[in-house]
């Protein structure tokens, strides 16, 4: 990319910045790849389905009911989606506040994931809301200040703003907007601190939403500690997702990643250690909740087995595997364990938001094909946008111009 840009100084702005230095014909030829064909087919059916949702309503396109009013779009897109998009905040704190500069190469990919993850969670929310066009209502028309969901909405709006301001310098570097870059970098530290506070607020608030459902959420999952379960598990989920992402980045965008394999392995091991300690905290919170609720006897029921499957298989097991991996210095094992960890966060959010909610109600919710397709479509668009930005802006590598040296 950069080579094409250097050899053709007189190239148009559009060709240089958008088409990666290729001509129109070259660019469109390059677009035809197996990945693009498959994902293109998904979009070809997914986008009309998404439009159908808004034209025909929730009744026609979902299996939601009066008894189970929340489904996949909240469980996956919102509760799981934002839980694994918090890596940017964790790395931001590690690099800037705790001063651990080693992790700096991971910061931009993590911030980009965080920004896109949250943006897409909110797009997913628009599908679920009965009246999405009233999204600003809680702020502008009628504020339900006593609702935890109001806090979530307020925090998501502010956090997305902070994340946008955090990721914009990368765009300024890509387009060579030096004045804007300098201006944006002035507020850098403030956004990192603000973002950290906001992320802790809304991640715990997402869990606190379930405090209102003591009789509707199964007692093994319902606990007064649920805000802290959500908060601690999102830190583990966000860091584990970061490990998976950097593994994929090395495979897919290897030519951009300037990091050596040794350095990558070292950072992966370091992150793995952080996830392992977070998971221990999470495990302790889980055990504490069962103990304080005096729910030991519930473990020997069908729901109890399901609970133990979640806790032993997706919290305890990865914790042990991380420690084995750290002892052996195996970055590979850390990467595989991270997949288990992220699946575990998904299982937990599904359990809390769907499976174990309304557990004793007669009706069971199973998502309709159109719900699944819209979610897959959103993930596909997310991947396209992610790749599009990665190929253009300095996310995985440092901009060569010394002007952009970050002095923090």
């Amino acid at each position, binding site marked *: 990319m950069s080579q094409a840009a250097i050899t053709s100084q007189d190239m148009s702005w559009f060709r240089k910045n958008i088409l990666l230095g290729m001509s129109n014909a070259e660019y469109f030829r390059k677009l035809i790849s197996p990945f693009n064909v498959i994902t293109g087919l998904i979009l070809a059916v997914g986008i009309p389905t998404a439009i159908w949702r808004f034209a025909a*309503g929730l009744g026609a396109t979902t299996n*939601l009911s009066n008894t189970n009013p929340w489904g996949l779009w909240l469980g996956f897109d919102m509760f799981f989606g934002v839980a694994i998009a918090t890596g940017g905040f964790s790395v931001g704190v590690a690099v800037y506040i705790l001063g651990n500069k080693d992790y700096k190469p991971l910061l931009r990919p993590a911030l980009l994931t965080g920004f896109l993850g949250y943006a897409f969670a909110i797009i997913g929310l628009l599908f679920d809301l009965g009246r999405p066009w009233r999204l600003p209502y809680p702020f502008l028309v009628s504020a339900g200040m006593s609702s935890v969901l109001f806090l979530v909405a307020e925090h998501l709006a502010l956090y997305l703003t902070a994340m946008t301001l955090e990721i914009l310098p990368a765009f300024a570097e890509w387009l060579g907007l030096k004045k804007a870059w300098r201006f944006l970098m002035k507020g850098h530290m403030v956004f990192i601190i603000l973002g950290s506070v906001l992320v802790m607020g809304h991640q715990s608030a997402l869990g606190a939403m379930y405090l*209102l459902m003591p009789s509707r959420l199964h007692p093994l999952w319902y606990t007064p500690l649920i805000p802290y379960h959500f908060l601690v598990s999102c830190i583990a989920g966000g860091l584990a997702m970061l490990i998976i992402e950097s593994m994929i980045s090395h495979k897919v965008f290897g030519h951009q990643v300037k990091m050596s394999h040794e350095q990558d392995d070292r950072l992966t091991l370091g992150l793995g250690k952080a996830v392992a300690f977070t998971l221990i905290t999470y495990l302790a919170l889980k055990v504490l909740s069962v103990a304080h609720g005096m729910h030991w006897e519930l473990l020997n029921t069908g729901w109890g087995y399901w609970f133990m499957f979640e806790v032993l298989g997706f919290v305890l097991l990865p914790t042990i595997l991380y420690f084995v991996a750290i002892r052996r210095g195996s970055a590979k094992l850390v990467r595989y364990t991270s997949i288990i960890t992220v699946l575990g966060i998904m299982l937990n959010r599904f359990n809390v938001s769907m499976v174990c909610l309304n557990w004793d109600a007669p009706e069971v919710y199973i998502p309709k094909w159109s719900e699944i397709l819209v979610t897959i479509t959103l993930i596909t668009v997310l991947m396209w946008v992610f790749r599009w930005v990665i190929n253009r802006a300095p996310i995985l590598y440092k901009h060569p111009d010394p002007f952009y040296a970050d002095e923090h």
Partner: protein
Amino acid sequence: MNSSRRGFLKMLAGAGVGAAAAGKAGDALAVEDFTGWPDTYGVLVDVSKCIGCRSCEGACNDVNNLKNGVDPTDQSVFETERRSDYNVYTFVNRYMPEAGGGQPVFVKRQCMHCAEPACFAACLCKAFTKTPEGAVVYDADVCIGCRYCMQACPFYIPAYTYQSAFDPKVTKCTFCFDRISKDGGIPGCVEICPTGALTFGRREELITIARKRIFADSDYIDHIYGEREVGGTSWMYISKVPFEQLGFKTNLGSTPIPRLTYGFLWTLPILHITLPVLLAGIYSITRKREGGAHGADGGEG
């Protein structure tokens, strides 16, 4: 507007916050425990008097212009346990409890109109109001359709017009608020009930009536369902058959559901004030340490 604001402040007062702002001079110095509006209305449902005629359902449909196409005399609806729907605000279910000696027991259900409603605490758009009359009313004009109220209701009452793409709303029993807020007005279902199974009146008086009936006839279960459940509800039930055999949830406890989040709602402001200071402090320490190690390298950015 004013009443809902007062209600919110009084609800906060229930969490142990001083009630100075609540506007009642006598309570200004007390840590007030909100126990519901005074002189609020309610309905006492005597399950043992219901014959399952479903005329309450018909009256509800008439008052609220509901077109659910169901003939109130049709007995086949009793085959399944029903729940509220977008066009069904009240419904009568039939149970064949073990304790009933083989006799069917009919239970009319509708919104319980809680003293401190979970739907109120759930709503981020303040679409729900607990009126001093006792009704929990919903305002579709501010609702964004998140359906958290439905998820929070311990009685599984609010329903949603899922079939509507452009004008969906939450639906539930209104306690015939337009009628009961006028002198002498009573809900449509109470007015039509031919057996006296439904009694409308001041909630406190209804509790006295219920106690007298329980005292006079030992067949009654010694429990007024709704007197204390989730902090008390405007609609209450007495029965001669244990409530758990009649589709009632008996694990709800007596804590008003909104209070379960008050602690958390106060945790966040504390976090918002202390955490930035803490992080800035840690940052300044790490900066200073680096400055010492690398000299000018750690200059202001």
